């Protein structure tokens, strides 16, 4: 939503009236109506079915508040985050390497294309199950599963990025005998960066989901493990509370952190593909 006030250059308004406009748009946005409608339908359906399996929204929010207030949420989030950061760090490295190889040499593209395609098509579930069977409860299980699932997404993006580097600029750099470091810093890196960030964003979302799956099948802490616990206790309200928290963290990381960074570094490009 912040983008709404940052873009209109044509209206030279003071920051206070722009803020006023933004607040007005925000407060009168139809989104609140949508949330209200959803809550009412949910409440009515819960009253109508009247079973423990369909909890009223108030019950879910009390549970959610309890999880956050007791600090349980933060310890579990930290446990999950640790796995994701280690696993995704490795996946990013491998993806970068594979992507650069595939983008710059046709022969490597031929060697690795099938592997990457197959990696994109296999469900995270298989990797999660195999990793849990093989490595048990150790850190290796989530790291391997995350590596296997998310490196293809990074690699595909990097490959496109390497291919998109302007050959003419490189040729010109050679003709004018531009220093190697300058070529890397001023031609290669700037045109690669948006693709690296896109790969980072996509891969991270995948890593996060697979890590949760691994925790469901073999872990003793983490958000996935909590979801599994709620499932085993038939506590729908617990699961919904954890799911909502999970969604909120994802949204925060994606729209609050990664997407703005991506837009910032891609701002010199004429078209940054924008899916919501």
């Amino acid at each position: 939503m912040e983008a709404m006030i940052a873009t209109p250059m044509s209206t030279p308004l003071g920051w206070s009236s722009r803020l006023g406009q933004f607040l007005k748009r925000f407060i009168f946005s139809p989104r609140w109506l949508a949330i209200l409608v959803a809550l009412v339908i949910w409440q009515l359906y819960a009253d109508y079915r009247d079973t423990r399996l369909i909890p009223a929204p108030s019950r879910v929010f009390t549970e959610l508040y309890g999880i956050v207030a007791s600090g349980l949420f933060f310890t579990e989030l930290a446990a999950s985050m640790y796995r994701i950061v280690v696993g995704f760090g490795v996946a990013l490295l491998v993806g970068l390497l594979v992507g650069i190889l595939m983008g710059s040499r046709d022969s490597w593209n031929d060697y690795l294309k099938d592997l990457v395609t197959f990696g994109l098509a296999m469900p995270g579930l298989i990797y999660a199950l195999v990793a849990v069977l093989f490595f048990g409860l150790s850190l290796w299980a989530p790291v391997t599963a995350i590596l296997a699932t998310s490196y293809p997404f990074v690699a595909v993006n990097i490959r496109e990025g390497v291919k998109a580097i302007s050959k003419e600029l490189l040729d010109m750099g050679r003709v004018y005998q531009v220093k190697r470091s300058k070529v890397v810093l001023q031609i290669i890196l700037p045109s690669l960066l948006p693709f690296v960030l896109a790969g980072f964003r996509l891969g991270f979302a995948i890593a996060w989901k697979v890590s949760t799956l691994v925790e469901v099948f073999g872990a003793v802490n983490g958000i996935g493990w909590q979801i599994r616990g709620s499932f085993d206790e038939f506590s729908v309200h617990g699961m919904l509370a954890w799911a909502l928290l999970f969604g909120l963290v994802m949204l925060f990381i994606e729209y609050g952190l990664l997407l703005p960074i991506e837009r910032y570094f891609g701002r010199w490009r004429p078209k940054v593909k924008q899916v919501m």
Partner: protein
Amino acid sequence: MSLVADTSVPASPSTWAGQLAESLRGVFLHRRWITFLVIGVVWQVTAMIANIGLFPTPATVIAVSWQYVITGLFFSELGISMIRIILGFSAALLLGTIVGILMGSWRFWDEFFQDFVILGLSMPALIYALLCVMVFGLGLTAPVMAIILGAYPFVAVNIREGVKSIDKELLDMSHVYAVDRWRLVRQLILPSLLPFILAAIRVGFTVAWKISVLTEVFGGDSGIGYQIRVDFASFKMRGVLAWGILFGMVMLTIEYGLLLPAERHFARWRAKVKEVI
């Protein structure tokens, strides 16, 4: 590395036999086989050195996959999963198209649905699978509902982009020239929407397929997901891997053999078709 029979610059032999031989050579002498060979050998050797029951050799995994295929188990389970996926995905497609058209046409509906669609995109399929299994039990409702919930946002986002990309000037022009409504829909709206619908089907179907398997893992008495669960529960790693490979093959066949060609065919008039691999 002189195996480069890649058909990038074919010498174009005149006879059909020569062309056939040329393309066959292109397939069989392709570099990709080196990768498979290297991976197969490394895997086989590691498994033989490790020599624990848990870590199967590629030969075992392929033998198990073959077993599943020739006993017919694979096809019967695939059929069961497919029915669930097709039912659920049809409903998701319908819902997603309606939401997407609303979001693309009116600003009000765009803001109305935006939060739900974004939240839906970022929630893991696992949540929908577990939730629907708990609420709807073992019947057909659980996978169908999980697929609808998980796949409709992907459809909606694509359709929304499609509606937004319809050329406003062409619409204005047909308005000025009083083109009748039917012709407008058939010759302007549908053709520019079609590539987006097909992209929506492709992405949404992949998601639907994965959610369906997850649902079967947690609450099903049949289907591919259930079989994966059975093998996992009995620590049969070769079984899990075999199902994974079969699953991947089916996905690849549907995506690259069916959906992507259809998408390319209908989008061929467009200047740039985004091509990821």
